[in-house]
């Protein structure tokens, strides 16, 4: 980094005015007897955006802090952050190399879609049962394991689609049985402090499933072959300036390249997503699920059995995690431990998107995918950039929990 000072000062400026705005604004709004639920967070982002130039008018005029105002401010903060970075380090690949940036963005989006699918399962469980499943990563791991063993060991040559369906069945079944035995009693009041109970018991499940898989398989990493390799194509022929594909990769405009397994996984994830939306919005059971998530009592009155909805939601959530695992086992090498970072990332996503919000989970997945891509792509110190990968998401998680625990689309706590 050449002019690290510029970036440092810009960061300090943003932090200072953000903190000031966050602390002072609610006081001013409270004194004027105005709505203060958004004042702290709104004040913080508005302060961070333009510093005194936006805070002073805000404090004088005290307008209603709308989502649009917050949105514009966040966009401004991100813009200033990027501008400061570009000024500070003009030779950085993220600034100087357009093809690199677009490829990173494409990779971020592609992987973000899959993260989103996994987080969708977690948020579905939360919206119906009100618990976060700490065993989500293990369902992801099992989904991948089943797919690998189906395609490579048990029935070699079987269509990947069959293997993916099998992994759905297995994860759904495990989720179903677990919910019946361990989570069902929560509804009947038999368990005191159900939320904490759910945290611990899913934690126990995670522990059990991980070691059980390790004991059954082994510690050797495995990986499924590419589900659907690309044919070799060059458009236009010979030069391939528009589109070139090899079995493992697709390159568009000679600049953006997306590896085949990721591309396949993202397409699969989008298809699953469409199916899920259809299920939730067009079928009776799906509508019943959403009804329960909105108002349990009212739903029960209309004849929906909330208990069976719980079971369904948990098993479907587990299945969605299994699906993401099944589609990623051709991208990554698979071990019994792969679920841990994946689960951590899902936590980040649902917190960012707002716990229990379906669109939030999807958008959160994209954002986390992009932030990780930006983090690994742009941090100048090559030896550090990658070493901190596990921390990027966690920084988002803690910040969101502190500043706006409801996330982007969450309901009030």
């Amino acid at each position, binding site marked *: 980094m050449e002019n690290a000072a510029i970036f440092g000062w810009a960061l300090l400026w943003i932090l200072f005015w953000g903190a000031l705005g966050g602390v002072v604004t609610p006081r001013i709004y409270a004194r004027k007897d105005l709505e203060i639920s958004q004042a702290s967070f709104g004040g913080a982002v508005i302060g961070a955006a333009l510093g005194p130039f936006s805070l002073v008018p805000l404090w004088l005029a005290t307008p209603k802090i709308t989502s649009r105002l917050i949105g514009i401010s966040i966009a401004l903060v991100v813009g200033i952050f990027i501008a400061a970075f570009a000024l500070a380090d003009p030779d950085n690949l993220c600034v100087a190399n357009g093809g690199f940036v677009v490829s990173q963005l494409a990779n971020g989006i592609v992987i973000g879609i899959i993260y989103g699918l996994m987080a969708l399962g977690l948020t579905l469980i*939360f919206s119906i049962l009100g*618990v*976060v499943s700490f065993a989500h990563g293990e369902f992801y791991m099992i989904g991948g394991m089943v797919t690998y063993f189906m395609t490579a060991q048990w029935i070699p040559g079987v269509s990947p689609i069959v293997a993916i369906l099998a992994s759905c069945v297995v994860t759904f079944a495990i989720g179903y049985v677990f919910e019946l*035995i*361990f989570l069902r*009693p929560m509804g009947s*009041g038999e*368990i*005191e*402090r159900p*939320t*904490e*109970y759910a*945290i*611990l*018991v899913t*934690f*126990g*499940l*995670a*522990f*059990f*499933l*991980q*070691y*059980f898989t*390790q*004991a059954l398989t082994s510690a050797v990493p495995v990986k499924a072959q590419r589900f659907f390799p690309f044919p070799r194509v060059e458009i236009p022929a010979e030069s391939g300036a528009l589109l070139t594909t090899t079995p493992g990769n697709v390159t568009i405009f000679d600049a953006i390249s997306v590896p085949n397994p990721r591309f396949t996984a993202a397409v699969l994830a989008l298809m699953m997503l469409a199916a899920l939306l259809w299920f939730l919005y067009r079928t009776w059971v799906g509508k019943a699920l959403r009804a329960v998530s909105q108002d349990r009592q009212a739903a029960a009155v209309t004849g929906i059995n909330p208990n069976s909805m719980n079971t369904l939601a948990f098993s479907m959530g587990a299945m969605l995690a299994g699906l993401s695992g099944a589609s990623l086992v051709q991208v990554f090498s698979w071990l019994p431990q792969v679920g*841990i970072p994946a689960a*951590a990332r899902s*936590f*980040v996503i649902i*917190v960012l998107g707002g*716990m229990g919000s379906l669109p939030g989970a999807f958008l959160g997945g994209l954002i986390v995918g992009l932030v990780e891509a930006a983090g690994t792509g742009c941090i100048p110190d090559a030896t*550090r950039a990658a*070493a*901190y*990968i*596990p*921390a990027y998401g*966690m*920084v988002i*998680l*803690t910040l969101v*929990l*502190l500043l706006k*625990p409801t996330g982007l689309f969450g309901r009030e*706590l």
Partner: protein
Amino acid sequence: MNPAALYRVSGSIAVVILVLLPLASSEMGGVGPLVLNSYFMHLAITAFFYAILASSWSLLAGYAGQFSFGHMAFMAIGGYTSGLIGKFIRFTTAPSELCTDIPLPGNWWLVILNIRRVGTIDESCLDMAKAETLPAGTLIVFPPVWASIAMGLAMGAVFGLLVGWLVLRLRSTYLALFTIGFSEILRASISAEIPITEGQSGLELVPLFPAGILGFSSTSKIPPYYAMLFLFLFAMALMTWLAGSRFGLFVRAIREDEEAAAALGVNIVRYKVLVFVVTSTLAAAAGALQGHYIGIITPNTLIILQMSLVIAMAVIGGLENIYTASVGAIIITFVLELLRTNIEIGPLLIDMTLWRLVFFGLLLMLTLRFQRNGLLFPILERISRGGVAEETVSIRVEEEELDEEEAVADIEAEEEERAASPGNAK
């Protein structure tokens, strides 16, 4: 015999046995046929270490209802603080000129060593100073271990205060997620900042008593045994006192119903933060002591697996009682060690190194589901009450039906009830 008295007596006997146990160690020649080798002593020290962690976590999670997954992070903060002080700080009687020197009263200097390049045996600035700038006869003194441990404790308290304050607004799931985030960020930072923390290879710490003590060498197990035992007993005494005082009453009132407790005038902020500070300081103390005893600390102590071990110990022992949690931790430390033996059932060979953890996870789930108070608590209950084991449960069921306003009063009543009950022996 009155159950409370029975428990007081048996508790005292247990303490006496623990204090006298080293007499039977191989270093002391053993007592009659009973000779405990130093591996047993090592396990005992580790068991106390986990007992401190599990019982302080049970105070935080079971009593105060704050399900933190960052307990091991505070443990690591204690260990790393103490280790980093030992690595980077020296006291000298002359300025080194080459390092960062801070003058102290009485012609002493506090020297902060430079950060060295990774993977090399570069000379530190002080080594160079010894050859070049320092006058002959200059004393170079390592910071005393007790002082660096104390700093570790202080750092644990500071971070406990910070995290406790930050998470005030967050409940149950949100708190759990935040503390996981905190712990993971700390782990990633320790792994990545290799020039400072040595990363995965681990930070080496000086022995607890570098020059030995009372005729025991620095590698003897007996001084660390007593150090850890006394920390354990002190922690238990402190937590017993806290749990029995207004503090314990209030934190449980907050756990059951925060609004109601606030309405009755409980200073929620103060008590919620305080319980965080106390438990994280205890964890940091255990971490610093264990770090010096083992001689090395790595970021792997922060992985979620290690945290789940502590949680499982507390849950299987009995989450809502610091005594059962600590006894659970001691038993499980030994059992997990014993279970590293393969089982042969006919032609089937079960590799217990792996399967013991599978059983352990299953046991954790079943305990939670069917024996919420842990496996030890009901045994104690049955012994002392002669079979009337259901009482606490029935109280709790009634409690849920009470109005919010009565919650605190009810806990007060329950508190009296428990005072008479043995599980909560004071």
